[in-house]
């Protein structure tokens, strides 16, 4: 017990020795304490100690590590900052964790062509920090943008609050360098985002580390909008706030962001950040408009009129950039801040068609009451992406009930014609729910594509696809999609 440095078993011995041949000693972790530090990502409910953790320093070293894995026939899991909320970076037993946290260089900010070339470990927010002196920024802004990495964003196809207008990672990555399961390095995409031939870049983005490891990313940078106007509006009910979102869409306004929070979420966020949220308002919207001043001013007038029409109880317009940043900080810190009002909680991530928001929220409230658990709601209202936070106490033995409620909520989203995940990914957490959304044939085709990339399924196995080991011999039964039932779509 005294010396923790050599916890190498019979399999890790030669494996670790091979890594030591391609990396400095300090970049190969085999001691028990070190390995256990990597046993989970941002979703701590799933834990697995890996055999070895390696920290390569450049793309060539990543490729060399993958080749060592290939030679030994062991699986590997790429890991960025380990902030994922679906267990996507959960290690595999006897497998290798390849941390990309030493590949953190911003290789180029190309102002003329509005591109940035990045190593995968660069923090999302640092791209904008580096670009902003040139009047440019990187659009996708997941709530965890200060810590999540661009490599992780590629794996998850991350969106963020502003994706309603600006899209997701897949819409902003032009080109990528990728290490495949055999250790070969290939480039996907091209300088314009156009690629001659099939869009393998688009396929790779959002594949949750199951198709390879991205080692270099070229992203588009956008011009910082001339005008940004943010409105924080309180409403007497969630429904009223929802109606406002509908009217915004009807008015042909595409806001940069429309975020909704309920009072429980605001209570937590306010405690954490002092962002100026009204903690006793039943619902609040944060609406942000950006673009050329002429357009934004016209739209903003329209927007305030819509809010007033629906009985807004407070309209707050932060004018200073600093004040606006504080409002966003309040919103973006909401998940973690819930730790202040509940000992434990689960963050869910489902999507419904925006027009069914009110319905899904009513159902969630009912389900929460039935389960005897509180649910706080934070969501990207513009695109129907919900983040119900199921609050519970591990100590009070509520864990299983909370897990069940959380899963029910995700599956409810599918039932209403939506998706299991809007941005956190399927990972380990929702792999077993995949058959609720996809037929065996759908999943089989995905799997065949995967085999084209990784014939032995050694890249992040056990994620995204339901497996008997994870889900029991019989994965949850397929239930017809409501559109299918309505005869809108057919399945043969």
């Amino acid at each position, binding site marked *: 017990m005294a010396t923790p440095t050599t916890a190498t078993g019979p399999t890790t011995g030669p494996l670790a020795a091979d890594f030591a041949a391609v990396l400095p000693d300090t970049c190969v972790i085999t001691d028990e304490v070190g390995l*256990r530090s990597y046993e989970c990502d941002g979703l701590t409910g799933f834990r697995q100690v890996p055999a070895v953790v390696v920290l390569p320093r450049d793309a060539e070293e990543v490729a060399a590590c993958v080749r060592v894995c290939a030679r030994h026939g062991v699986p590997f899991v790429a890991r960025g900052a380990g902030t994922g909320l679906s267990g996507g970076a959960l290690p595999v037993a006897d497998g290798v964790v390849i941390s990309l946290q030493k590949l953190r260089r911003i290789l180029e900010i190309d102002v003329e062509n509005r591109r940035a070339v990045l190593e995968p470990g660069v923090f999302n927010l640092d791209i904008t920090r580096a670009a902003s002196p040139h009047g440019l920024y990187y659009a996708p802004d997941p709530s965890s943008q200060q*810590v999540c990495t661009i490599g992780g964003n590629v794996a998850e196809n991350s969106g963020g609050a502003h994706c309603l207008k600006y899209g997701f990672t897949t819409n902003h990555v032009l080109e990528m360098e990728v290490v495949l399961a055999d250790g070969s390095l290939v480039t996907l995409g091209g300088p314009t985002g156009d690629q001659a031939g099939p869009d393998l870049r688009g396929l790779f983005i959002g594949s949750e580390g199951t198709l390879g490891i991205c080692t270099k990313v070229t992203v588009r940078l956008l011009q910082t909008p001339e005008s940004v106007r943010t409105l924080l509006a309180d409403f007497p009910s969630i429904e009223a706030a929802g109606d406002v979102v509908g009217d915004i869409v009807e008015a042909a306004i595409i806001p940069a962001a429309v975020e909704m929070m309920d009072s429980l979420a605001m209570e937590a966020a306010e405690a954490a950040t002092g962002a100026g949220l009204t903690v006793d308002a039943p619902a609040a919207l944060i609406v942000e408009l950006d673009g050329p001043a002429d357009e934004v001013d016209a739209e903003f007038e329209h927007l305030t009129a819509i809010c007033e029409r629906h009985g807004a109880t407070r309209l707050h317009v932060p004018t200073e950039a600093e004040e606006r940043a504080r409002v966003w900080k309040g919103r973006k810190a909401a998940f*973690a801040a819930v730790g202040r009002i509940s000992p434990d909680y689960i963050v869910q991530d489902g999507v419904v068609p925006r027009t069914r928001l009110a319905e899904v929220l009513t159902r969630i409230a009912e389900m929460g009451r039935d389960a005897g658990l509180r649910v706080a709601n934070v969501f990207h209202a513009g695109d129907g992406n919900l983040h119900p936070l199921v609050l519970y106490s591990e100590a009070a033995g509520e864990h299983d009930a909370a897990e069940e409620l959380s899963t029910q909520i995700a599956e409810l989203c599918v039932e209403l014609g939506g998706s299991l995940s809007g941005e956190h990914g399927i990972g380990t957490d929702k792999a077993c729910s995949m058959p609720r959304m996809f037929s065996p044939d759908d999943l089989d085709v995905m799997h065949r594509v995967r085999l084209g990339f990784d014939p032995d399924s050694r890249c992040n196995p056990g994620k995204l696809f339901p497996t008997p080991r994870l889900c029991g011999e019989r994965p949850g039964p397929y239930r017809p999609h409501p559109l299918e039932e309505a005869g809108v779509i057919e399945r043969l």
Partner: protein
Amino acid sequence: MTDTQPPTHETGPSPDYTSERGEKAAPERADVLSGDFGSFDDHHPPAQELLDDCVHCGFCLPTCPTYALWGEEMDSPRGRIYLMEMAEKGEIPLEGAFTTHIDRCLGCMACVTACPSGVQYDRLLEATRPQIERNVPRSRADRLFREAIFTLFPYRRRLRAASLGGALYQKLRPATMDRLLAKLPRRLERLVAMESLLPPVSVRDAFARTPIFTPAVGTRRGRVGMLTGCVQDVFFHQVNLATVRVLAAEGHDVVAPAEQACCGALGLHAGREEESAERARALIAVFERAEVDVIAVNVAGCGSSMKEYGELLADDPVWADRAAAFSAKVRDVSEVLADALADSRAPRHRVDATVVYHDACHLGHAQKIRTQPRDVLRSIPGVTLTELPEAEICCGSAGIYNMLQPEAAGDLGRRKADNIRGTGADLLVTANPGCLLQIRKYLEGELPMLHPVQLLDASIRGVRPPGM
């Protein structure tokens, strides 16, 4: 002098296991197996409810200096809390890797600022370090080095003697010294680090005393007690004098009791709890006798600890209330001066300079004091404040860290120096002697460095700021 070494952030921390048992094999560890506190003993182990606050979100990672350097989970706040959890459950022993990773923490508390869940990492760390000091036998070299630091630094007289030697030494220091030092074996690198930190100090400054009583200029606002500090009073005596002048000019009687000694901050941050508690009691008694309204501190690290005396002595029935009352009076000098801004008594003269203000961790992160020093600096006509990229990341000083972990501290120091250079400022201002010593080492001579009160003092007196 470590420039010739490869930058460590590329390879990760060197295996600096000085804290691991050095000489003989570990005995059977009873604490790994038994007790409600796992591997910790029962004297204030990290509280489970504080550990539970961490939801593993990772928001702390980018602001953690060691994570910024190496990108390793175990050397991040989230990772260290995870290790504390494992130790609390008795799954890992304290000695070995656990101690190594806790030792590598700078205690800068940037993570506390970054944490959206309100995890009190400061309290967790302060509970963990004494556990290590009590329960983990350190290697002989490590033990001796730590003892040497704590035998020297908290004692003004000894520091004066050392500074005398130092002043002489710096005069005589042969040009070949750097090359000689660079050749020293790695195990002596801490001595090299200590050597290179020695600031230029005049013998006169080192032996000068801060006046015991200085009356307010004009109508009196109140009676302020002043901590003169140990390192500060010897190496940065001019800062103390400037503090006295500025406070007096703003209408305060300034009392600097002669019998005050070290506040215990250095030891407290290193886990030497008992020693620090003793120093705290002594300092409380001194300032009780001085009968002051406010105790002004111009050293961020000291102020941070003195504000925590209430917690440090909470278990002591005799001292608990007195400590709480003391802590309630402690203010950073910038807080005292910022309060006076609305009704300022001392006219300022113009100082035309672009000034970059470096937030000392123990001021910004630990005491949440960020706007007050900036407001005070902005009250000087002609001063343009500029902000520092990566402002939240520690400069590597961190109390005695740059002596204990010289390699990491060196990388952080260079990183901070690069960021400071990038601002193109004329002047660096920061409110902690440790930061000044550390940054000076990597920016020697490139731009003047001052404590904010020195700049304000120069402005009030209408003289050229030191070094400009």
